[in-house]
């Protein structure tokens, strides 16, 4: 264990030397690839690409972000990810350009050789941030799994009891209304709507109640409200979220908007949705 400032200084020099050894380069045509010591949560070292153009210096990601070179599996787009990406783009003042084969390249440009190092730091930090943000599971895996399980069970049940009716899942009523409903059930010229309420914990469960309520309330007073026959919330009362929380109050509010059917009493669905 070092105790004197002298041995700490030795360690510092070791750290700086080890770090320094991480830098590397490869010449690629007129472009210099610089492998930096910046690393991502996907265990890649970030490369930036330096090229000169009419007395300017350009430092880019070489199209590696667009080609998914830093990630194994695409995490899919999400609003949160897009906001983080925008923040990084704005903060590091990153520009983008599409090349002639359709690759989007992110870059910074300067006419001063002395600023190149600063650009390398900015572009490498931008790449690290963007790659790491893409790996965040904004919705926990158990929530995704629980929701998929309930949706699967409920869809199967709906298909069984309304085998001879036109039924669509996770759909819009028409193009004017952006909200999607778990079930859109056609009944001659009208439709009935069902929203599934579930959640792997209290937070996601109460969100799900609010979302169902809002989805139905949004239709009040709109031209499509005349098209709606029934609106029902189907509540997953065997979910971990339902059992963890006390939702009597929430469900009382929801009942002012629409009938609430518990999954354990799902037989009620048929009579509600078939009534006139």
């Amino acid at each position, binding site marked *: 264990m070092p105790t004197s400032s002298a041995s700490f200084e030795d360690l510092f020099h070791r750290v700086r030397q080890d770090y320094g050894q991480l830098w590397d380069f490869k010449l690629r045509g007129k472009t210099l690839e610089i492998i930096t010591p910046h690393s991502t949560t996907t*265990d890649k070292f*970030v490369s930036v690409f330096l090229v000169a153009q009419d007395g300017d210096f350009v430092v880019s990601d070489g199209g590696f972000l667009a080609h998914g070179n830093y990630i194994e599996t695409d995490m899919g787009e999400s609003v949160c990810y897009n906001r983080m990406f925008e923040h990084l783009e704005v903060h590091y003042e990153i520009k983008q350009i599409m090349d002639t084969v359709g690759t989007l390249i992110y870059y910074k440009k300067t006419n001063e050789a002395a600023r190149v190092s600063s650009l390398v730091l900015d572009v490498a930090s931008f790449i690290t941030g963007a790659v790491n943000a893409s790996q965040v599971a904004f919705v926990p895996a158990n929530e995704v799994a629980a929701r998929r399980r309930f949706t699967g069970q409920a869809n199967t049940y709906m298909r069984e009891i309304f085998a001879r009716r036109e039924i669509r899942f996770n759909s819009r009523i028409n193009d004017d209304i952006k909200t999607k409903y778990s079930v859109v059930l056609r009944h001659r010229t009208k439709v009935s709507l069902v929203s599934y309420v579930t959640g792997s914990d209290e937070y996601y469960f109460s969100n799900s109640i609010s979302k169902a309520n809002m989805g139905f309330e949004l239709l009040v007073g709109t031209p499509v409200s005349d098209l709606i026959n029934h609106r029902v919330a189907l509540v997953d009362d065997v979910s971990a979220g339902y059992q963890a929380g006390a939702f009597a109050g929430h469900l009382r509010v929801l009942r002012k908007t629409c009938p609430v059917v518990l999954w354990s009493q799902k037989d009620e669905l048929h009579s509600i949705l078939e009534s006139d």
Partner: protein
Amino acid sequence: MKKINTIVRDNYERYTALIAEPKRTAGPGLDLSQKKGTNKVLHACQIPVIHSDDPIDLWLIAEIRIDRLHDFKFKLRAPSFMGEPLLNYDSAGPTHRNEGVTSLPEQIVTTPHFNCYDQQGRRIAYKTAPLTNPEVVRELEDIDRCVIHFYEETRLTHDPAGYPAISLTAPGTLPFAHHTNADPHAHVVRFV
């Protein structure tokens, strides 16, 4: 905490058997004349792989960037077993960091390299002996030669001929030009 592939960690014996035991492919070879999705420059194909004693659904996937022919990947996938490839070869692209290694400079594994998982389910990169020899590496930038190395490393055999032929273009079309270490800015008209 680092991302751990629990499927590999909990089924390590089966995982290593899938990679290390003999496997075979058959047919005309790898046809890389077709685009992958909407991407203009990425071509891809897959052919089924038969494992010597595991009846699992197994695939060999090849991908190549036709604007820089030294940039290609081979992947071995078992979709019913795990989502990520069991093992892959990256001829180009970013340097991998093996965090399990103590000394920081030794954590670097540049491309070309193979990726697989260790016993703890950590994704690691490694170089086979030929991949540490710069002259051999230059030869292996040719996908026709590299596929032989990939077949040896993953204990694959192709029927017939031992390893598959690779076609990059549809019959009757001109071959793509081969640029070694192609410039990633080659198709940029002008940075503004």
